[in-house]
């Protein structure tokens, strides 16, 4: 089972976090981590703790903001939301990933031995 999980490429986690916040609005760290796991159908190899390095990185770039608040079940937690600059960045990065994925898809679709005479 472990080998079937996807190892995350550098930078992909940041993009996932941004997209999650854009889709879901204000969320705490645990919520973001859970959401990514659920969406990926538990296919992503994610130690939930690694999300915090990504969060601080995004925060320092000014793409997300954070504040302490209270969860639905009355727990103190730090909530993150995407900023306007973050949305802009997200659309750029998403477009980039989309293109990359398309190209990769086409390259990998080449039938084997097609270059043989």
């Amino acid at each position: 089972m472990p080998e079937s999980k996807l190892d995350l490429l550098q930078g992909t986690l940041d993009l996932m976090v941004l997209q999650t916040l854009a889709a879901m609005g204000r969320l705490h760290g645990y919520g973001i981590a859970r959401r990514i796991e659920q969406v990926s159908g538990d296919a992503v190899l994610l130690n939930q703790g690694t999300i915090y390095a990504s969060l601080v990185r995004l925060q320092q770039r000014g793409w997300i903001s954070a504040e302490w608040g209270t969860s639905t079940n009355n727990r103190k937690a730090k909530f993150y939301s995407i900023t306007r600059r973050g949305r802009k960045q997200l659309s750029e990065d998403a477009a980039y990933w989309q293109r990359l994925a398309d190209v990769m898809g086409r390259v990998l679709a080449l039938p084997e031995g097609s270059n043989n005479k």
Partner: protein
Amino acid sequence: MTDQLRRFFHRVRSFFRHAEQDRDLDAEMSAHLELAIEENLERGLSALEARRQALVRFGGQQQSRESHREARGLPLLETLLQDLRFALRMLRKSPGFTAIAVLTLALGIGANTALFSLINGVLLNPLPFPNANRIAVMFQDKPNFPKGSISYPNFLDWRQDNRCFESIAGYRGADGTIRGVGEPEEVRAQRVSATFFSILGVQPILGRSFTDEEDRRGANPTVILSEGLWKRKFGSDQNILGKAVNVGGAARTVIGVVPMSFRLNVQNFRTADLYEPIGQDEDEKFHRRDSFWGTNAIGVLKPGVTFAQAREDMKRVNSGLATTYPDIDADIKANLIPLKEEIVGEIRPVLLVLFGAVGFVLLIACVNVANLLLARSTGRRREFSIRVALGAGQAQILRQLLTESVVLALLGGALGLILANWGTSAALAAVPRSVPRAEDIGLDPRVLLFTLVVSVGVGILFGLVPALKISGVDVGASLKDAGRAISMYRSRTQAVFVVGEMAMALVLLIGAGLMIRTLAYLWGRNPGFDPHNVLSFGIDPPPSLAAQSPDAIRAELRELHRVIRSTPGVEHISLHWGAHPMQGDDEVGFWPEGQPQPARQADYASTLEYVIEPGYLQTMGIPLLRGRFISDADDERSERVAVIDNSFAQKYFPGRDPIGKRVMIFDFDADSSERTWIAFTIVGVVGHVNQFGLADDAIQPLQAQMYRSLMQGSDLFTKNAAQGLTVFVRFHSSLSPQAFFETIRSALLAHNGQIIASGNESEEEIVAHSIASQRFSMVLLGVFAALALLLASVGIYGVLSYLVGQRRQEIGVRMALGAKGVDVLRLVLGDGARMTLIGIGIGVVVALILTRSMASMLYGVAPGDPLTFAIVALFLSGVALLACYIPARRASRVDPVVALRYE
């Protein structure tokens, strides 16, 4: 880009809010876990399982913290600080090692910093004049004096005819007696041209410089004061301008004050207390083209003009003068020397040699510390093995070790800076007048930067070899056997280090040895007179004396002689005028009677001229070789006589008896100021006196010396003498020379309150100053060599002790198998001797090459002097073997039972 900047800003902020952010993260993480546990509980898991799964899903908490810190802060800086903290902890844990290493490095770095601060202050820092690199010091190149004075009319023609100088200014010493303000005293005075201060870019702090109108005969007498004199003598009087001051017996109007920051020291010019316009000099002789009286000059080149172009231009000017005045200026030549060259040219090679030498001291210090680190690394191998086993990379360990060595070096550098600051002033004080621009030497930012760079560089240098060895250690092997086996490779490194140290120490010792032999040679050289217990000083009779008749002047001079002679403790005395051994030159033209009078001025023979009284011979302890010295009978009424030295006799009367021969000596007629030639009969021959210093006398072309009687001077000469003379006194007193001078001074003041006696110096000091730069080199090279010897001895001692410790078991086995203590002693000493001898062999070759650069500093000994080499090599071998003997003896006393049991 702004994105990167913002992120960096946040990172810096995070770096400083480390603890706060850690707390924040911890709170966030525990909230995370609680949320997860809660959800798991809702899914129906047991409390234990809910918690376990939450923790598993979260992953390594410490790793999360680390990656969070890395993402938010400045990981490089944090690692560095961590390494630093660890390094300091390690160094604190072994204070003995740290102290020795820091002290060793402090000596090495300190010595280098001290020398660099000399080089920085003297050679590197620009001169404090805005146009310094366009300023030339100008001399007239004469047969006996490449840096001779320029006759004033020639100087004026140079100034007018040249096309390459913006401006030329003359300068010359002057009578600096001040009367009428407090006690009469003599201060340093210079005559200068109107443009002198503007060439040097010196702005008066009060008033103005001289004008061209003031700079000629008959102009209104004016004077410029130095800020120092103005403060001291005139109480910083803000209204000093326009006031009259009695200088040299004449009233002069103060027109300006120049700042204390103005300092210049070149031939015949030292920063003075007051300045007069040179053109106002009333002395007729000064204004004659054929005069031996002259001026020195500085000039500032027009922008873009090179020294080579200026020299060509001056050739053109001089060929014009040679055509116009064929009898006087036939071969006239100008000698232009860049100002900086004139000031520091002589000391430059000395400083560079010393800098090279001090570099060796630092290398030896490095090798010693590297050896210490190597020895210590044995004890730390387990520590590093464990760290490697726990996942530290080789690079991390290397970084940690280099951090430790750089920290050591920086500590050494800081201590070295203190030593350097102290050592520089000590060295300069030990040998005064040895280094020009001494006032410019100090710790400035460039020196601090030098020390920092050297410290870091040195830290990497001596840390690298041990660090590479340790960080490359085989984990399994050293964990297993706890570093008991000796790595052959490592002890070979140490042996190479010791050989290198010995070689470098030998080079330094030979350098010092050569300087010591130079000094021994110079000190042992007979200066031609006996400077012990001889004092010289200047006296300025009251200005009214010069206005009296020659007979009255002579009567007063005899009276002064009597007053000084009767001071208790005075054994011999002579009033004196003219050349002063090792202090001031004075030459006069002559031709031997019976030969045709030369047609051109340049063709006259020259001799140094000493105008003295009969007591001079005994005062100075000069040996009489033939005939007689000048006596009291040789006075104004008797035939004029002269005494010459043996150089004079050999040059102008080779193989003949000079006694009874006559020479025609140049003089001026008192009434017409026309040139005259006066016949003097030679009555005696005395020994040659080192006029130009212990080191340089032999290389000077002017060797002939002539003495004549003060009482037989022409009337014009007698008037000149009435304005100031020198006195030589041989004394026998328990008082210090200074205190003794004061007793003479009070006796003179009691005789006449207007007499000024000043400028006293003992002849011993004057002789010592003549070899100040050699003494300075010897002192510094001696200190460096002593340091090198000490460090190298400690080095070989340390390495042998270490090896003996390592070979304890082997020695134990040997002794158990029957080896005697003597055999072991021989074994260990043999190791030491081998390293020493190889080192000395290499050192001799290196020294043969390097000491050639010292050739210009050496006297009476060749750079490759075999005797010095042999003595130094023997000495170093002896010291090294002594250093080896202690560990060797310890080895020979190893108890086999104890050694074999020892783990």
